[in-house]
């Protein structure tokens, strides 16, 4: 782990780094691919809505000695859907099953009667409406829309509109992927799922904002220097917060992974699966998109700004001039292959060397801080 600490130090000094912005097209491609898969999955398989949303059938039995979990197994076998089983005050059972119409409900009733060993006459079958009505859903959409507008306004003020737009794209990206995975896996959508999605919404933005905060800080005086383009600084800021991003994601994902794989998988708690899957996918997508999508997008937007464009031109011209002087090592640093550079580095970090600053002060103890505003022209 101390290697990670050293890695952090080297990331901090910019000795190593991954060229996130330069390789953005690859990651955009990956994201577009995943998103298309998600949308296709959604279109083809659709979402498996739970009883809370679409209603279903309810079977009420007389007093019985069958246990709740046993009845749940029977009901799920009989119907092929998730079942909610509750014991009533009189000792009977109330079994709710989603997505069932009248004819199917009779069939299930017979099957249940056989399994539970009660007279089928004594099972009352009825259709139930959704407990999560249209009103709840509509209000939730309305709330979401208002929140999105407000958060874009806030981000536009606190940062700038380009970052707000990028954050929004990242957010939509995360939600689409999560919903798509849901459709593909075929888990039932419960209120827990929806709440999981809303949690992701908050988390995805939160994560993006942390990265943007560092980006904003580093690009404060960008026009006052001519060493780095905006994209390069964006890269630096991602790399600078990389350790934090990894740590936060690990810390957030570990408990959810516990819920999903141990709680849902090993201990077999169905409802936990529904919630923790959306959380797990969403958290992972949120962490991924804030690094690979949101920040490169901001860089893309920014590079279109005349000021930044001019800056880039100047920098490239300067580099070209330096290269023309015939310094072999001046070849665009970004394209250097690292294989020949760190042949036996025990850290074996897949590092692409980005624009370097403090190479000029090899033995300095980090005086290079605040480099973005470097005075040297």
């Amino acid at each position, binding site marked *: 782990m*101390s290697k*990670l600490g*050293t890695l*952090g*130090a080297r990331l*901090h000094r910019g*000795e190593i780094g991954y060229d996130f912005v330069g390789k953005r097209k690859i990651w955009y491609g990956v994201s577009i691919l995943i998103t298309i898969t998600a949308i296709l999955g959604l279109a083809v398989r659709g979402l498996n809505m739970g009883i809370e949303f679409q*209603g279903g059938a309810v079977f009420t039995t007389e007093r019985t000695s069958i246990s709740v979990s046993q009845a749940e197994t029977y009901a799920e076998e009989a119907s092929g859907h998730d079942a909610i*089983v*509750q014991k*009533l*005050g009189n000792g009977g059972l*109330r079994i709710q099953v989603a997505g069932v119409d009248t004819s199917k409900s009779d069939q299930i009733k017979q099957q249940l009667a056989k399994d539970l060993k009660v007279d089928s006459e004594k099972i009352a079958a009825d259709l*139930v*409406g959704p*407990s*999560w009505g*249209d009103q*709840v859903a509509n*209000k939730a959409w309305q709330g979401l829309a208002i*929140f999105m507008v407000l958060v874009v306004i806030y981000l536009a003020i*606190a940062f700038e509109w380009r970052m707000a737009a990028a954050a929004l794209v990242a957010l939509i990206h995360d939600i689409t992927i999560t919903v798509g995975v849901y459709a593909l896996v075929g888990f039932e959508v419960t*209120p*827990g799922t929806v709440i999981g999605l*809303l*949690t992701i919404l908050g*988390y995805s*933005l*939160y*994560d993006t*904002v*942390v990265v943007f*905060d560092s980006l904003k800080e580093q690009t404060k005086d960008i026009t006052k220097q001519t060493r780095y383009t905006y994209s390069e600084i964006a890269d630096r800021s991602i790399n*600078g917060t990389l350790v*934090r991003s990894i740590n936060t994601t690990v*810390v957030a*994902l570990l*408990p959810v*992974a*516990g*819920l999903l794989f141990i*709680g*849902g998988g090993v*201990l077999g*708690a169905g*409802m*936990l699966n529904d*919630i*923790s899957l959306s959380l797990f996918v969403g958290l992972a997508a949120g962490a991924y998109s804030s690094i690979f999508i949101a920040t490169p997008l901001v860089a893309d937007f920014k590079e279109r700004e005349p000021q930044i464009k001019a800056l880039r031109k100047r920098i490239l011209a300067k580099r070209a001039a330096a290269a023309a002087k015939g*310094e072999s090592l*001046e070849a665009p*640093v970004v394209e250097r292959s690292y294989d020949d*550079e*760190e042949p036996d*580095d*025990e850290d074996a970090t897949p590092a692409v060397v980005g624009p370097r600053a403090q*190479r000029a002060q*090899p033995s300095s*103890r*980090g005086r290079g801080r605040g480099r973005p505003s470097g005075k040297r022209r």
Partner: protein
Amino acid sequence: MAAPKKGRQGTQGRPGRTLALILIAIVALTGGMFASGHTTPRLGIDLAGGTSITLQAKNEPGQKNAINKTNMDTAVDIMNRRVNGLGVSEAEVQTQGDSNIIVNIPKGTNSEQAREQVGTTAKLYFRPVLVTEVTGADAATPSPSASGSSSASPSASAKESEKATSSSSPSASATSQGRAVTDALKADPTPSGSSTGSESAAASPSASASTDPATAKLQAEYTKLDCSKRTVRAKAGDGVKAGDPTVACGQNSQGQWQKYILGPAEVEGTDVDKASAVFDTQGAAGWKVTMDFTSKGGKKFASITGKLAQNQSPQNQFAIVLDGEVVSDPYVSQALTGGTAEISGSFDQQEAEDLSNMLSYGALPLTFTEASVTTVTAALGGEQLEAGLIAGAIGLALVIIYLVVYYRGLSLIAIASLLVSAIMTYVIMALLGPTIGFALNLPAVCGAIVAIGITADSFIVFFERIRDEIREGRRMRPAVERAWPRARRTILVSDFVSFLAAAVLFIVTVGKVQGFAFTLGLTTLLDVVVVFFFTKPLMTLLARRKFFAEGHSWSGLDPKRLGVQPPLRRTRRASAPVDTKEA
């Protein structure tokens, strides 16, 4: 949230005091929790089970086919908002079959009150009062002047308008009851209310003779009516249409039962846009209910109050009738045209909130009878919660191992902060159970587990900042002080986004989503509180310790490990060629 400002003071070097403060706050909260006797958070119906009420819809008299899908859905919506007004109580409402509604209320809720809320869900009307008197054994003199007690009974007034001088008119008490009814019934339909008052005063005694059968029947019913009997009360005015006059019972502020003859409904519950219970701080009137009408309702209300204001007592009163019972009978001193009104009286908080709830959520389009009440077990079963807790604990253990391995000594601060955060979340949730009916469901438990990530992120941002400063070559204490303002900004900006999501969702949405928004908002606020008042001061204190200040190799802040000293590794060599590019 004054946290940022206070936090800044706290960072100026009195970390001990801040720490002591938050520890005292935690102890006080925990003490409060034990004192209140609610040491566990209330669990939602999915985890704890509760009571299930089945309600059977009945057609309103005179309205056939009222039981249809649209009306049932509306009824579900209204009931949902009534039992789940704040959105955190986790009650569930759904239709069953064609004409039943099931209401599930989590264990530990006041199920009596909830049953009342969903049960007394009939129509709400504003009707003019024609005659009223106290009934039952304690009604000594059945004179209409009993309504003169309206000085004590609720009064309606436009905002800030003078309260009417409640001199009950002598003429009203002089008139015999029968005549008053007849006159009022005759006078009421006339569109211009201006003549009503004088007409009733000048009414001839013979008028009572010429009453039509309906009026006579109403009069007879009224005379018979004994509101002190519960069964009689329940039946009073049963089956009367909104457009007909009726009899009704109500309780006045002295707790006496009063009976009424009421005119046709002038304003309906659907005309009320929203109502809220407010505490009157200026007038010392205590709790009151303010109403906003819809534009249509506002006009209707202005016209009825304009008419009533010119009448003598008791005919200047209108009755708010809910489910056939008069819940309030304020009198009117002038036409109320503002589209708003307030009902003041000797409400306590509960009464004011109940009334405003009923007014806000209007009237159900159907009447319901309770078909059955039964207990139900948890919808998810105990094993789900158990599995969730075990899994959560394993996850947490992994988090702690990760933190210890990566942050070493610093992880002590992180773990202590997480612990403080967990204690505060738990205690506050436990306390909110009895106060606002907060109930924890499985999604909320999962949400709290995700909140671990968001809370831990604040520490991680802070720690990484400190490490960056140390990499710059700073000593421990200045590093902490320099790192904090920047970490603080990041924490506040990102927490603000989370809090914004929570606030918007809480205000706009209903039901479970609202409950979720509440949990999210709570954990976000606690995150800020913990980082500002616990993590930072603790960090400042520990930075003075030799163990951390000198960067012990287990402190997590060892400059060597952080790569401050010229690395001895080959990495330097590797990077050496690059240096020349600056040349």
